[in-house]
């Protein structure tokens, strides 16, 4: 039993943090919003160059073959900067799925390419327009198509960097890849969205803390007032108790049992609730500034809202936890128990 990260894992997260801190600043977002784009090729190139897109890809498909724990740390950093590009869905979900179906597929070697995924649980596909290809589902089988082989209808999201589309397509115009593990895709996406939620939440708190130290009212920084402090402390408590759930969910995902699924669902629920609590607290602490387009907090609010409802609604995830509770033993000796051991 050891619930700590090793140095290599911390180092990867550190690398991602540094890269995003330099390349994904509020200035960058603003320029992209003005230009109406959701992908910055230069930033994506640096992400690729650092190896972040290869972390979860197996070595047989040209990747580094690390674990979900490693990728979750990167996803958290992506959340901290509200990264516009679909690093999580492409490199964390779609590419590993493609690699499992077709490890030699040319797309996997095309470093600049992103892959979108149309999961049956989601009504829309994110970033389908800028993707080199889209993974599609029919009767449990996976198909691959390029955006121009399908019909995309834009479904504008409140999040300026989430480009959503409904997709209509015909299997005759797509490449069949065979039966795919859509449940694993869901688990990974839910887990990495949870990890992003931690990053979103912490950034919202950090922005508010910075502001509350500077902004003066009644002759004092507003951060010295308890009502302000307590909003942010409450958000931080939510973050602190989502963190270990995300870490455990990442470490256990490969067990693929009732407990592992419940923990992923738990992680997704609480991390995105923390992101929502933190973003709303942050807006409140910023006053009218927080309500202005100028100040960045709204990006974190909107991303949290979007991620909370995609890849399984809260009700969907709560039901998976209920299944764990009502079909598996509960109690203090069951924290790390497995379905198979109890069978």
């Amino acid at each position, binding site marked *: 039993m050891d619930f700590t990260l090793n140095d290599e894992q911390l180092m990867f997260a550190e690398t991602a943090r540094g890269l995003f801190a330099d390349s994904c600043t509020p200035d960058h977002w603003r320029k992209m919003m003005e230009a109406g784009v959701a992908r910055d090729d230069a930033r994506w190139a640096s992400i690729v160059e650092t190896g972040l897109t290869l972390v979860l890809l197996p070595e047989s498909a040209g990747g580094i073959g690390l674990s979900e724990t490693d990728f979750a740390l990167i996803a958290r950093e992506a959340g901290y900067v509200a990264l516009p590009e679909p690093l999580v869905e492409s490199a964390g979900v779609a590419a590993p799925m493609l690699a499992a179906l077709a490890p030699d597929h040319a797309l996997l070697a095309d470093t600049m390419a992103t892959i979108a995924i149309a999961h049956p649980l989601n009504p829309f596909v994110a970033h389908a327009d800028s993707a080199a290809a889209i993974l599609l589902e029919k009767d449990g089988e996976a198909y691959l198509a390029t955006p121009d082989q399908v019909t995309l209808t834009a479904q504008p999201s409140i999040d300026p960097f989430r480009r959503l589309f409904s997709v209509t397509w015909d299997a005759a115009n797509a490449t069949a890849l065979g039966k795919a593990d859509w449940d694993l895709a869901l688990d990974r996406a839910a887990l990495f969205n949870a990890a992003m939620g931690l990053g979103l939440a912490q950034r919202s708190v950090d922005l508010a803390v910075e502001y509350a130290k500077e902004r003066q009212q009644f002759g004092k920084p507003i951060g010295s007032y308890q009502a302000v*402090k307590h909003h942010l402390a409450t958000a*931080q408590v939510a973050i602190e108790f989502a963190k270990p759930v995300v870490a455990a969910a990442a470490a256990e995902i490969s067990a693929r049992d009732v407990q592992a699924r419940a923990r992923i669902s738990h992680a997704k629920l609480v991390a995105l609730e923390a992101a929502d609590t933190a973003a709303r607290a942050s807006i409140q602490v910023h006053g009218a500034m927080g309500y202005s387009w100028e100040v960045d907090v709204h990006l974190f609010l909107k991303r949290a809202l979007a991620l909370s409802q995609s890849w399984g609604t809260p009700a969907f995830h709560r039901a998976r936890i209920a299944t764990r509770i009502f079909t598996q033993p509960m109690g203090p000796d069951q924290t790390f128990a497995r379905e198979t051991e109890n069978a």
Partner: protein
Amino acid sequence: MDLTYTPEQQAFRAEVRAWLEAHGPSEPLEHYDATREGFEAHRTWEKTLKSGDWGMVTWPKEYGGRGLDLIQWLIFEEEYARAGAPGRVSQNGIFLLGPTLIEFGTHEQKQRFLPKMASGEEIWAQAWSEPQAGSDLAGVRATCVQDGDDYILSGHKIWSSRAVFADWAFGLFRTPGTERHKGLSLIFFPLNAPGVTVNAIKKINGHVGFAEIFLENVRVPAFNRLGDEGQGWHICMATAGFERGLMLRSPARYQVAARKLAQLWEANKETADPALEADVVRAHMNADAYALNIYQTASRLMAGAKIGPEASTNKIFWSELDIHLTQTALAILGPTAELTQEASAAGPVDWIDDYIFALAGPIYAGSNEIQRNIIAERMLGLPR
């Protein structure tokens, strides 16, 4: 990262389980706060525990422990809660003062106090709060005056849990003429020493669970001072870290409660408000998150880290989850929720008493308002 138990840890769990099955009381004991008999029954249980060498497993062997690590402690706590074994009447000693003594005490002090603490021979109360010094603990007025090799203690302490029946107290005293955080010392005194008067105070559940303590020129040897004179505040904050962050409320009790809540739900879901299932799920999630957090903290401490201000986040989380959990149970019980245990047909769990107990959580061990101040100022860096 490895979230599996080693074969040694599994064997340890089996050993604890077998021992508790063989030795645990067959009938629940009367509550230790209710009567002297209840208190003494718990003391006897502590002695039984010690006979199996389970008094406090993390302490070094020479001081009455087993020299085990924090993961083993968690396993012990899990099995203890799972077995439904009695509440620890010596909790203020073993969970708060004990770890503090191990960090700050001399070898002689550890030898003198720890083994008897682990065996229940001496049961400890915490005497910090005063009528004028609650949240603002640095406002302590009780005094300690050195007289040769002794201290003379005087003052008025209050809200001291279990002091009505306990043997010893660890108190916070001020050297006359000092102010606020400076000049405080942590000093032990026997609750039956000449000059000590202990008056019971009833809690809202009717138990004589706390006491006020009057000290009038109580003489104790300077040996009873932990750390240096004037170091009391620093030492108390370390104790508070153990209290809030790790030991006082081990996750296992909430996991047991969450399981019982799920059973209560299953037995009543035909008639109860269907919306409550979400709360039953939430109670499990909270207990589980708390357990994971504590496993992570234990791993970090074993890797050499120290408990910091994040202990305050724990205290808020466990106290709030306890209220939510017990409130959910009462909501499921509906119109029978108000019945006391004697009248209730709800089964073996005394939900109403658990709920009343839970309500104290946001007050003691530093109120949750104070914890939020600590988080804001020391974790987030907001100005005072």
